[in-house]
């Protein structure tokens, strides 16, 4: 296991306990509070599914909206699944595709533009489905 003390002075280090543990504990409490607030605040359409009314009264969760919109745009089943698989493969293999030695994304203009374009595309697709 890695030893962070190697090659560092005492000033560059801080104790894992309690500093990091406290950070995680505090944020865990924030998360639990947010979940409980969402339980109270978020509306829920809990009606039995039938073709008569359910389809136009509920919307899918926000994180699936872009997938649904893409499925709507690409009519061919094969094309849609191929697009998803290709996108997933590219996403998974980012470390092997990015050969630029610089670390920060803002220092790589081409890659930066591609990432921003992809993010905007996902948001745009989701918004298109949401506003439908």
């Amino acid at each position, binding site marked *: *296991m*890695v030893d*962070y003390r190697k090659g*560092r002075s005492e000033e*560059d*280090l*801080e*104790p*894992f*306990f309690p*500093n*990091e543990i406290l*950070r*995680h504990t505090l944020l*865990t409490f924030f*998360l639990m509070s*947010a*979940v409980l607030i*969402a*339980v109270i605040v*978020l509306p*829920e*359409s*809990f*009606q*039995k*599914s*039938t*073709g008569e*009314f*359910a*389809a136009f009264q*509920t*919307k*899918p*969760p*926000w*994180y*699936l909206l872009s*997938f*649904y919109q893409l*499925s*709507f745009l*690409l*009519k061919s*089943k094969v094309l849609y*699944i191929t697009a998803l698989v290709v996108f*997933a493969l590219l996403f*998974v*293999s*980012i*470390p092997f595709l*990015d050969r630029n030695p*610089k*670390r*920060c*994304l*803002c220092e790589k203009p081409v890659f930066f533009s591609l*990432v921003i374009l992809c*993010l905007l595309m996902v948001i745009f697709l989701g918004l298109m489905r949401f506003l439908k």
Partner: protein
Amino acid sequence: MNKTFKRESFFGFLKNWFEERYQLKEAIERNVTKKQIPKGLSWFGCTGGLAFVAFLLQAGTGIFLVFHYIPSANEAFNSVQYVRHAIPYGWLIQKVHAVTPHFMVALVLSHMVRILFKGIYKKPRELHWVSGSLLLILTLMISYTGTFLPANGLSYWGVSTAGSEVGMPTMVTDHSVGAYQDGRAISNQTFVLIYALHIAGIPIMMSLFMSLHFLMIRRTGISEPL
């Protein structure tokens, strides 16, 4: 006084018993109390850990729901209603299980975006990214299968929209589209299939990738602050 003495000696005995066998004190000192980490770590670096907390929350509430949910076309909706209305605090546990995926997906996404923008996936952490991105895909899949199970309006939306148009995600939904749209022949097998994926197939894969992810982080250490 005598009682306190007995309690202390009992806990002392237990402590010694475990210490003798597993040397826990040394492990705790090495990994927690005497561990030093680089200064200046961002609070945003905790999003991965928080996503894990959300996963644990889902596992905990999910285990409760497993005892009451019936994966059948006729009973699924009613069994969830039973949990919500007939079991003490069932509504709370069911709703927590229903809303936590929003947080879980948001946390995994923000974790990935941060790593992408900071280039933390660079050598020697390439496989951290691979396991993390697979975990994101599995998180989306488990959330999708979860929306299907209660057989409510949202479930119908999922299969009617994505399923009828292109069969998302692949053949699983093809079955469910038939199940909903035929009307007369709703397949229980479809529910069992998606239920099995939701409670066993995907969580087991997620646990495996999470173990690898955490193990690799332990081996390489966290990334230096930029």
